[in-house]
């Protein structure tokens, strides 16, 4: 019985492309099995993990996941709380009980807490099968954002932008002297001096472009050392 892996790590493959033949391999994320064949289920980057062949997603809009920290924008205020845009196909609900650790009095003007147009950092607490989403703002780091600007990046590149245990983003914050919050939904908040902001945006876009190249961390370190921010 033949068993052949036809691609190697870091190959770019298109939907339907033949990745492996034979029953000796397992179809991982982003792939599917058709008889003896393992095929790509989307455009992706090959990752061979032992006998499992999976694809790293390169593109695609954000899909809310429980536990994610995301940056949202309030677009509606009603009796039970706020509705927010999540930079995905699905708006989320921020209910009264999850909004803040402060006490919200009955009949209070909710816009005093969060108003239409406010940007907030929140956490996804629940996603139903219909993709109805609940978010909460009770927790460390969850807050209303004031000032600053928000840029959009490819949600699939967020892990690279954050880096291992936040190392990459920490490096950028220190070099540019900016406050930066990265949302899993591909929205990044940056606040600092204009020169620092320009460099921060530049670097983040660079990471987005070169996310899968090796030696990225060193290149970014070198780039940041060249641009000094007062």
């Amino acid at each position, binding site marked *: 019985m033949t068993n052949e892996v036809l691609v190697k790590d870091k190959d770019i493959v298109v939907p339907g492309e033949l990745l492996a033949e034979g029953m000796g391999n397992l179809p991982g994320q982003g792939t599917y099995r058709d008889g003896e064949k393992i095929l790509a289920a989307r455009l992706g980057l090959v990752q061979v993990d032992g006998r499992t062949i999976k694809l790293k997603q390169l593109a695609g809009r954000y899909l809310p996941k429980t536990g994610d920290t995301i940056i949202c*924008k309030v*677009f509606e205020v009603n009796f039970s709380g706020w509705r927010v845009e999540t930079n995905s196909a699905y708006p989320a609900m921020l209910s009264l009980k999850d909004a803040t650790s402060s006490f919200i009095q009955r009949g209070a003007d909710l816009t005093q807490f969060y*108003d*239409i*147009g*406010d*940007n907030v950092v929140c956490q996804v607490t629940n996603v139903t099968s219909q993709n109805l989403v609940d978010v909460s703002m009770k927790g460390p780091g969850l807050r209303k*954002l*004031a*000032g*600053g*600007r*928000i840029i959009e990046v490819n949600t699939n590149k967020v892990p690279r932008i954050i880096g291992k245990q936040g190392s990459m983003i920490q490096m950028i914050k220190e070099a540019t002297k900016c406050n930066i919050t990265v949302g899993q939904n591909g929205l990044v908040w940056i*606040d600092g001096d*204009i*020169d620092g*902001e*320009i460099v921060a*945006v530049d670097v983040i876009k660079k990471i987005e472009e070169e996310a899968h190249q090796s030696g990225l961390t060193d290149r970014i370190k070198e780039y940041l050392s060249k641009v000094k921010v007062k």
Partner: protein
Amino acid sequence: MMNKNLYGHILKVLKSGKRFDGRGLTDYRKISVETGVTKTAEGSALVRIGETEVMAGVKLEVSKPYPDTPDKGTIIVGAELLPLSSPEFETGPPGIKAIELARVVDRGVRESGFLDFKKMCIEEGEKVWTALIDVCSMNDAGNLMDACYLAAFAALKDVRLPKFDGEKLDYKEKTSKKLPLSADDPISVTVVKIGEHILIDPTIEEGKVIDARITVNSKKDGTLCALQKGEETPLMPEEIVEMVDLAVEKSKELRGAIK
């Protein structure tokens, strides 16, 4: 209301004399103009300003002139904000934004005398050339107004008249004859105001927080041919003069991009 945070931050940044992308307040993004991009149009152009992209095509037809101008040809300008070019645009007939774009481009071309309509007459009272100009957004990254006008302008310069034997038009055979265009090269520049700052070539983000804008069409010698003020905030006469002066100054850069 949806953008009050953005507005505040942009004002803070503009005070430093720079913008989010590092440009100065009176800097255009990179401009490129390509002509003859589609063979089916009699004249066409693809204009890029930064990542904004607009395609314009001109089709020529022979028709009966309007009864009050029996010896003049004419233009009809259409503008489409194609849903392909932005998540904000929908399918359907042109909304007010597209209509304004078309009318401002039309005014710029018509009122400047860029086209000599009398020279577009074939047979008085019977047959005149009509130039049908269509501008379509291909990617909206802000400042569609200037990109649309520049594309229409370049497309008109690119036109070669199809063969007309007096009775029938043969689109398959293009003559070497061009449209009767003046050498004044009228160009449109849009100048915007955010807070107390005056700038040109707004990006999408800047476009969200504009207080007022003026689109100015001017000839090479600085003569003004058309004006359009937009958005809700009123302007003082001194501000208008300042913005118009900037527009006339910057039109030289756009003219340079056409070669």
